[in-house]
């Protein structure tokens, strides 16, 4: 046997990154600026989000945190060309995953082409209400996925286990159309991730999860993936329940000993038809506008100025595919 003295490296300059507990130390070591509002520098651009259908949606849910609707044109569709430019930039920035949201992404007529471009580079996740998912589209998407090295995840929003429960939030007819679209996705070979905003006390989550599994089994979906999200008190949801209290903001003190990796803006940005925002939650907040280009937006720290930041702080990375799955506050 050859003599084997493996040498062991010192930690890289600046230490190990988040996930090994070093972000905790960073929070206490001056990386957070002592400005009136704490700010968070980007650690790595792991997730690139696209507001691909702007604020345009075929539904008008009463809990929509950015109040999307058929007639909400405050953010317009992104073109395939606009997405392609950001995809080009994303290679240099070492993006790890691509997410598409709206509005309803499939309101964008170029969506399938956009996904084809994306899947040539990396994994894609679409946040959809699945009500615009005829069999033909589900099959076309399955072909795109099959042609790619990467996974294509369909994240389907459904807010109740019954027609009554869901449609009270998502509007009449939404349940049936979503169930039909989900069945088409399952039939085409997808394992959609059912995403539901928790509208019940945390203690009842197990019961609802069981009901969801039964509902999905009825569609022939036997490997169900279900993600329960905590409510965001913004947009229509703020009118439905309550808005945030003035005191529900992130302060410097709160960041001591806190792992910044729990905040999406630590590792993500949102590209829209007009500029780049800190994260998909703060589509419209001026404080979260990070610049015109991805490179500019990646270089600037995010001010934790909004009360929605408080939910991130409490609930962790709810937006990613494997964040909170029970809707529980920590």
């Amino acid at each position: 046997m050859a003599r084997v003295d493996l040498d062991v490296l010192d930690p890289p300059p600046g230490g190990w990154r988040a996930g090994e507990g070093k972000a905790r130390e960073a929070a206490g070591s001056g990386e957070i600026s002592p400005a009136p509002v704490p700010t968070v520098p980007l650690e790595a651009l792991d997730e690139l989000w696209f507001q691909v259908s702007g604020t345009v949606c075929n539904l008008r849910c009463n809990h929509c945190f950015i109040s999307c609707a058929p007639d909400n044109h405050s953010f317009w569709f992104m073109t395939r060309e606009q997405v392609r430019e950001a995809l080009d930039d994303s290679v240099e920035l070492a993006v790890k995953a691509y997410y598409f949201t709206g509005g309803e992404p499939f309101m964008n007529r170029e969506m399938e082409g956009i996904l084809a471009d994306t899947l040539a580079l990396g994994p894609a996740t679409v946040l959809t209400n699945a009500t615009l998912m005829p069999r033909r589209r589900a099959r076309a998407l399955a072909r795109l996925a099959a042609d790619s090295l990467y996974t294509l995840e369909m994240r389907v929003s459904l807010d109740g286990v019954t027609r009554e429960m869901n449609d009270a939030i998502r509007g009449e007819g939404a349940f049936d159309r979503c169930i039909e679209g989900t069945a088409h996705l399952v039939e085409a070979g997808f394992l959609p991730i059912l995403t539901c905003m928790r509208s019940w006390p945390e203690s009842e989550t197990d019961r609802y999860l069981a009901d969801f599994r039964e509902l999905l089994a009825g569609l022939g979906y036997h490997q169900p993936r279900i993600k329960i999200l905590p409510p965001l008190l913004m947009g229509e949801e703020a009118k439905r329940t309550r808005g945030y209290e003035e005191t529900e903001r992130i302060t410097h003190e709160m960041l001591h000993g806190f792992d910044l990796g729990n905040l999406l803006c630590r590792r993500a940005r949102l590209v829209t038809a007009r500029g780049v925002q800190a994260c998909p939650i703060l589509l419209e907040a001026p404080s979260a506008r990070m610049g015109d280009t991805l490179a500019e937006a990646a270089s600037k720290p995010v001010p934790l100025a909004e009360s929605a930041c408080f939910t991130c702080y409490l609930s962790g990375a709810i937006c990613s595919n494997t964040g909170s799955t029970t809707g529980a506050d920590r």
Partner: protein
Amino acid sequence: MGAREGEGAPRGTRPAASLWRPGPFAHAERPRVRRVAAFGGIYSNHLALEAAIADARDRGADLLLCLGDLGAFGPSPDRTAETLRAAEIPVVRGNYDDSIARGLDDCQCGYTDPKDNHYARISYDYTLAKTSSEHREWMGGFPGELRFRLGALEVLAVHGSPRRMNEFLWETTTPTHFLGGMIRQAGADVLLGTHTGIHWSRQVGSGAWYVNAGALGRPPNDGNPEVWYAMLEEEGGELKHEFVPVSYAVDDLADEMADEGLPEEFIETIRTGWWTTCLEVLPGKERSRGRY
């Protein structure tokens, strides 16, 4: 890749005992090997580990390397530790080893699904209780990464990724440009990792490779009880590698697990090759290849 033959460590000696000392310690010259067998997560499957060690030696490996996660899932964690120590196999620190060594609350696998957490808790509590303090101390000395030269190639061996011990690098969620950036930044030709439990590899530009060795502890969710390791060598400045299936006494392991009171779900995975727990972290493509 210029071959730098003639340099490097003298041949014919056993791996240095200094490997078991806590790092970091540096050498002017990287150790040089010809044929490396890389073992991913062992998950206390000491029977598969023994079979893999014998197989890798038969195939002429001059370095056997473990990429971390000695515990979880299987029975009697001390057996795995004893086997690795007796064979003087260097180990890169995995999230499980880090947790066990430091007595943390959980295994740092990052599960959020309640069912995944339920099973993760059972195996973690069992492993923590059954690992001797001597082995825990030994695990505390595992380095976060190891570098060596495989012929003319610079290899960086980690558990998850160079930036994070518990980062999942799945085949269908890891872009080639992302891997390329990571490998360039590390100044390596080959990045070697595990943590996901499913082996795969990809060339990421001229001469550069990422190799995920998979796991020795449990089969890769493919309906077959064999487990896998990776064998790597250099030829003409290029990486040559293959994944090697390992057959072992599955029934004996299953019996041991039952005797230790480990969950039926774990035993089913060992026997059938299908994952039954910790499914939440699987990407859609990988998961749809499995049964659950």
